[in-house]
């Protein structure tokens, strides 16, 4: 094993929390039963790494195997770093019939042509997600495995999720994706978060949305909370209405965990009491950021409890509706552009 592979393994073992080491190695599946027995998961990490390096030497493994181990770990623990969503646009006629092997071949070949040298590893996960690991090099150096980019895509959907991508690498990845998925363009979906599952669920609508209906869903279990007849809730009806509107805007049950929502304002300052600012020609630029451990849950609670007025303002309900958490707000008249918006009430 060469030096870079050793370094990669050392870095990786340091990165994996001690309690996950065993499961990760199991999932990797390369160690024999005997080798697994010989590993002591209680010893300090540096000793553990030495033992693992010895096993790698015994088996003649290379950097390739280590990147495989890293991929196994990342697929199971994707919530590190920021994930960004992209959307593929204008599918060609045969975009719907792109199948796995074809996509893999095309992506690898296009990316290698565009960004030589590059090291690409593609793996299909059980839930139909295609995971791609890319180590980038340049004309002076071999692919750098210490800073790989990870990409996740589900075929036949327009969404791609990316982490650890620099602006220099972006055009190459975009081009390779567009060509291999048979689309004409790719754009930034203005959605980012630390939890891959959350942004994926939001875009693929894999959470419980609420629509007005006069009937309960067929065979749905109704949890009828038996209320104490001795207790009467004042304003029960308005509380119920607020809850209904909050759920219609954000959803029911567990909501995808977003951490923030950013509004970049490029609107003119409006305040009658401050003439100096109001008279200015240029827009008053400012950025408003909402942050929370679970933003959608917080917003839903705000609406349901009356802190935020209902019906929920489109500024907030657009987050789940449009599947984005970055907005640029300008003073333009109500227009169809996806970026410019104006409060409608």
């Amino acid at each position, binding site marked *: 094993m060469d030096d870079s592979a050793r370094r990669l393994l050392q870095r990786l073992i340091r990165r994996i929390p001690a309690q996950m080491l065993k499961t990760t190695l199991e999932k990797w599946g390369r160690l024999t039963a005997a080798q697994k027995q010989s590993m002591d998961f209680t010893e300090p990490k540096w000793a553990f790494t030495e033992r693992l390096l010895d096993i790698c030497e015994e088996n003649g493994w290379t950097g390739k195997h280590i990147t495989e181990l890293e991929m196994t770990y990342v697929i199971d623990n994707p919530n590190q770093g920021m994930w960004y969503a992209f959307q593929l646009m204008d599918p060609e006629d045969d975009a719907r019939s792109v*199948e796995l092997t074809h996509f893999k071949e095309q992506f690898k070949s296009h990316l290698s042509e565009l960004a030589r040298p590059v090291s690409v590893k593609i793996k299909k996960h059980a839930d139909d997600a295609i995971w791609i690991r890319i180590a980038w090099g340049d004309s002076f150096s071999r692919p750098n495995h210490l800073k790989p980019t990870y990409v996740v895509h589900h075929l036949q959907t327009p969404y791609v999720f990316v982490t650890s991508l620099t602006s220099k690498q972006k055009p190459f990845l975009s081009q390779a994706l567009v060509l291999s998925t048979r689309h004409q363009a790719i754009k930034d979906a203005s959605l980012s978060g630390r939890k891959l599952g959350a942004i994926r669920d939001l875009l693929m609508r894999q959470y419980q949305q609420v629509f007005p209906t006069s009937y309960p*869903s067929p065979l749905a279990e109704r949890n009828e909370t038996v209320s104490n007849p001795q207790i009467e809730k004042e304003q029960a009806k308005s509380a119920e209405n607020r809850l209904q509107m909050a759920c219609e805007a954000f959803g029911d049950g567990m909501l995808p965990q977003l951490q923030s929502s950013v509004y970049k304002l490029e609107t003119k300052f409006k305040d009658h009491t401050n003439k100096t600012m109001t008279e200015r020609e240029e827009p008053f630029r400012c950025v408003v950021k909402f942050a929370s451990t679970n933003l959608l849950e917080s917003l839903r609670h705000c609406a349901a409890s009356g802190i935020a007025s209902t019906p929920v303002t489109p500024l907030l309900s657009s987050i789940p*509706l449009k599947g984005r958490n970055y907005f640029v707000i300008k003073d333009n008249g109500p227009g169809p552009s996806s970026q410019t918006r104006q409060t409608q009430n």
Partner: protein
Amino acid sequence: MDKRREDEEEGEEGMDEDSEDSELLRLMARHTQLNDLLYAHHIIGGYDAIETRQGQGLCLSLPTAYDGVFLETYNLEIDVKPTPRIVRHNIPPFIPLSDLVEQSDMQTDLRTFLDTLSQHLNAFSGRKQQLKLLKELHKSVEVMESNALCSILVMMVTVPKEKTDVLCTLDYSDHTRCLPTRVHFECNGKLLADSPDWDKIRSLLLETPVHKALSDMRTMGNIV
């Protein structure tokens, strides 16, 4: 009507109240009957349409079912003015919703649009359900590839006689149907040549839902 005339003859004061009451009762009966009819329509899987936002919006539900079992229900919220357009929905992104909207005129023929969309959704639910049942009922069959739209299924079956593994690929290229349009088999990397046995299996897979076809194949001893 006869009873009414009798009442008329009985006494003038009582008459108005009685006829109002019976008219009211008649209306109530009609109202209950209509509600029951709507509920029946809902239970058999009709699109429930509700007016929202004081007539400016319309919310529709599209239930899906397969093999007599209700599956997912999908919803659409439509803004009626100025022209009907979809504002909100929970339809998965691999269903070509925008294509279907373009191909139909929502203003004049909403029903056709809904019927086509319902076809796609029901077919998708059906294929998804078949895949789920396949995984539950046939643990000896390994699913090698499937996708979110459930339009392709590649599975590995074992032939008992030769103890060889055969890769079966089912292409569901017609997304409005629950059955595949093409089936082919591969053994050791090459396509299996036409043989009467495999032809029979091919027609079985083309005509029967995959989980049932596999049960039949098991019974007939074609696969392990």
